[in-house]
């Protein structure tokens, strides 16, 4: 009995200390309304992917779902990086879709595997800046509710004979943001067809989708991997203009290319505004 006298108070204490058990009941999930609102913050979802990544096709579908659900407000760039993007010496995966910028970014953000994503390169849930696809929806939902930070306009002029693109970008800040800000202009290419590993039948045949169509693939940048400094002190009354030219390599199909430009804080890399237009047509 002495034993139980000693133990019982401890059990009661424990029962009082740890009432920590949240049993949930159905329904566990409810459908949320979506819809792009261009009067709020524009969002860039960077989908770190690779042709040897079996989980990536499904992640890419999720990324494009978000782009469609928040049409006009969320943009996707597929960054082929990490081990999963390395080419094989022979076989189905000899293509090399890695870029200097993509490799640099994945190293900087410590992304070693795919699929992983960055949403405006901002922290979500207070931890790693990159996140698995299941968290993209939550992070996008937080980001799209933020106030609009800037207005950007872009004019592209493409010379077919020289395969040279000239891009003019105007930026006007709407928020008095602190710190240094950079502008980066990237080239994305759609409709590149080559094999992709896959493990989910929802995304296509397994284990390899032979004629996978890669969309929004990062092909390079017009002004360096980290872009160019726009300002060290935001002036709300000023329109910042930048002009870039870029010669397309022979194997890029210019009609399938887009220019995606974004401004970000040089200090913490957070993206504040994004714009995307066709490379070979005048902006609307």
């Amino acid at each position, binding site marked *: 009995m002495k034993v139980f006298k000693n133990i019982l108070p401890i059990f009661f204490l424990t029962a009082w200390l740890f009432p920590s058990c949240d049993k949930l009941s159905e329904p566990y999930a*409810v459908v949320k309304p*979506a819809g792009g609102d261009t009067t709020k913050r524009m969002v860039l979802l960077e989908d770190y992917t690779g042709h040897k990544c079996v989980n990536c096709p499904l992640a890419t579908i999720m990324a494009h779902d978000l782009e469609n659900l928040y049409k006009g407000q969320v943009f996707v760039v597929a960054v082929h990086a990490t*081990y999963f993007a390395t080419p094989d010496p022979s076989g189905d995966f000899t293509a090399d879709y890695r870029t200097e910028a993509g490799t640099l970014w994945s190293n900087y953000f410590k992304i*070693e595997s795919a699929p992983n994503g960055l949403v405006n390169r901002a922290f979500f849930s207070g931890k790693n800046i990159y996140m698995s696809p299941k968290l993209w*929806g939550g992070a996008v939902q937080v980001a799209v509710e933020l106030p609009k930070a800037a207005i950007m306009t872009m004019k592209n002029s493409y010379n077919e004979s020289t395969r040279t693109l000239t891009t003019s970008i105007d930026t006007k800040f709407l928020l008095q943001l602190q710190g240094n800000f950079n502008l980066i202009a990237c080239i994305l290419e759609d409709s590149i067809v080559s094999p992709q590993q896959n493990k989910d039948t929802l995304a296509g045949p397994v284990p390899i989708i032979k004629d996978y169509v890669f969309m929004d693939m990062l092909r390079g940048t017009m002004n360096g991997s980290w872009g160019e400094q726009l300002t060290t002190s935001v002036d709300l009354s000023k329109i910042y203009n930048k002009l870039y030219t870029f010669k397309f390599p022979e194997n890029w199909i210019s009609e399938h290319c887009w220019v995606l430009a974004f401004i970000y804080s040089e200090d913490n890399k957070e993206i504040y505004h994004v714009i995307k237009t066709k490379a070979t047509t005048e902006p609307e």
Partner: protein
Amino acid sequence: MKKFYYFFPGLAFLWVQIPMTVTGQDFLRNSSVSGSFQADAAYYLRDTKMGITDSTLDGKVIRMNAFTEVNYSIGNFSAGLRFEAYLPPLIGYDIQYNGLGIPYWYVNYKNDKIDVTAGNFYEQFGNGQMLRTYQEWTLGYDNSLRGIRVKFMPINGITLKGVYGVQRDYWVQFKDNNRGVVKGFDADFYMNDIFPKMSKSIVKLTVGGSFVSDYQKGKSITVIENHKLFELKLPENVATYGGRLNLNVGDFNFYTEYAYKINDPSAMNNYIYKNGDALFTSLSYSRTGLGISLKAKRIDNMSYKSDRTVTNNQLDINYLPPVTTEHSYALASMYPYATQPNGEFGFAGTITFKIKKNSKLGGKNGISIALNYAQVNGIGRNPLNDSTTVDQTGTLGYTSSFFDISKELFYRDLNLEVTKKFGKKWKGIFTYYYINYNKDVVEGHNQQYGIIYSHTGVIDLTYLITKKVSLRGELQGLFTKEDKGNWAACLLELTISPKWFVSVMDQWNYGNSVSSQRLHYYLVSAGFIYNTTRLSLSYGRQREGILCVGGVCRYVPASSGLILTITSSF
């Protein structure tokens, strides 16, 4: 007088210092310092045949993982810390380790009744199914808790433990509830000590129970499913509880532990709300010259982490012990098993026996034989209804009755080891392994590789040249029609006790279907041991694979270069 002026402050200094010095000496006399050190440094080389290019190395050709741990104790008090540096981490270790600092420190007081730790600590409840924090350097694994631990021993035979803290997450500081807070309580009752009547009984009985809870902020999460946005409810407090029993009767020992976890939607289980459970049971018999061990386990949805969003070897609260055996020979360890926390059913049996010396079969020195069989299958999963797929996010996921074992084989291992001495100079270990390895399940692919059926044979011979000098040789062969085909390996190791060793090893993938990949993975090593310090230098190639310790694995990419390892303890 002048001299006095100089002398006086000196005297005053001594007057003050002498008592302090005496106190300091006593302080030192009653205390002890211990510690250990390890540094693994690598210089990586380009190796185009292995696909290692300048771009793969990304300029980070010199890398290092190192730690120093120091523990100080005086009387009932002790304190310690561990400094770690990953500059940058070796290839194959998580890049999130990049950096240096002190991730582990503690102060502890203990006497006969109580044991209190503040700071970091490693703890295990039962066999770990509900809580285990530990460090495994070779895996780059550390899930230590930082907080408070109290152990209380009210009477002989009863141990009560309480833990409260947050887990290590590489170098990420705990702030804004960026991971869960873990609380746990454990009680252990050794009946033979509690009840004097049982003290001399042949029956030894221990029972125990644990309750663990993880608090992670966030009542909902938004996910995309079927091209729609869904908001999922989240439990902020996820509890696991269970009990265990250990019964020892003479040469027999029986252990069983059951754990139950309430709804814990996470990235690991695709955000389903099914409760989880795990049962582990073992029965063993041991007497001189004979040992028999049987194990069985069933795991259903038992990943338990203090951050529901992570999917790698990070922030595990619990540990699911394996029934499979890990092998040390290079080719035998090519296909190890990684525990599948979302669901598996496994069983294993081992029998070890010795054929007596001077018998017909055993010869002059006798023969030791160990036979082991282990098999792991998936568990059966049935859809909840016609409109819900198995593991569908935002649902209970699936149904599975306790004895519903899937036909899908995850792993099978049959191995036989025979050890025999031949006279005074020779010793031989002869081993055969038949391993079925479901590469898709273990490595996370889908319908890509299927099951790899491999036969491996190892001959390990040691020849004692003199009392201090020995030569050991290994000859290994792995035969499979799947994966990368057949392998052969050999090793020669010269040991000059107690200080030196040199070894040469080659693993040759001669059966690879791609002729350019029929590579030799050679490795030349030399080492020097001085007291408790060991230094080794290796040069060669590391083949791609996975490395597992206790069913927890990490991917090891192919590499080539020079590796320096220094370990020491004091």
